[in-house]
């Protein structure tokens, strides 16, 4: 034996899961805030939600679900030792994450163009219910988009590690952790989509 590098995959995985539980409760607090204000301003939330584009939201849902599947498949292929397929799956995941953000850019752009943004004159005129709805919409989808952005960086790092043979068949816990993170981002969107786009 030449050199023993300390590695604790199980500890690394446990740390990632604890972080994910923390994130779930963090977004959970925002979801409870949404539920309370939806209960207080039922009419306003009902009509404000109709302004959001269901099909753009649905497209982003499909994009995230497919990207979640491709990153999960990349973990199976790295375990099989198939570097080429792993790189392909990671590249697809990365591309889909970018497409998601491009959609978000156009969606937010259209809302802002219509004068619907936090502390805008138009929302002040529409009243407290609409102000809360759009406040929560921008805060929650914004925080989610920030998580997508972080995910893009992380997936990019894993892609380079696989390419440079740093993440391999026998050493792939970083890739698994990034996968877990990406599924968390997917789960948050699974709840954001029906609550903001569907229930109108």
């Amino acid at each position: 034996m030449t050199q023993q590098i300390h590695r604790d995959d199980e500890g690394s995985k446990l740390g990632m899961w604890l972080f994910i539980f923390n994130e779930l409760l963090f977004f959970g607090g925002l979801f409870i805030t949404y539920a309370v204000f939806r209960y207080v301003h039922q009419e306003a939330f009902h009509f404000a939600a109709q302004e959001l584009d269901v099909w753009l939201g649905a497209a982003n849902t499909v994009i995230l679900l497919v990207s979640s599947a491709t990153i999960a498949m990349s973990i199976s292929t790295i375990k099989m030792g198939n570097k080429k397929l792993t790189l392909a799956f990671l590249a697809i995941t990365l591309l889909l994450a970018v497409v998601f953000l491009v959609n978000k850019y156009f969606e937010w752009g259209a809302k802002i163009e219509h004068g619907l943004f936090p502390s805008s004159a138009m929302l002040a005129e529409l009243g407290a219910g609409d102000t809360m709805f759009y406040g929560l919409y921008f805060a929650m989808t914004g925080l989610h988009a920030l998580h997508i952005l972080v995910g893009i960086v992380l997936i990019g790092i894993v892609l380079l590690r696989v390419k440079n043979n740093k993440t391999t068949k026998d050493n792939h816990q970083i890739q698994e952790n990034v996968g877990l993170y990406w599924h968390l981002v997917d789960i948050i969107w699974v709840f954001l989509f029906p609550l903001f786009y569907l229930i109108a």
Partner: protein
Amino acid sequence: MDNHENHIVPLKTYLLILGALLVFTFLSIAITLIDLGPLAVAGALLFAMLKTTLIVFYFMHLKFENKMYAIFGGVVLLTFIVVIILTFSDYMFQ
């Protein structure tokens, strides 16, 4: 100890799960297009929970992990439910 590390999920399983997730997504859109009134909220959330269960157990491998992770997850879910009940009992009866 059983060896969890070497468990490789076949790609076909992931494709099947993805198919189910997409079907649930379109079903949740379909039920909001027909007017169900207050039931629409319950329906949409039910589909979201079904999707989350599939993602957590298959994509995140919880099904193949040490039971400890599932217990931790259960505690998180329980905490969340308790906070929801406390918050709403305050708002509905004040």
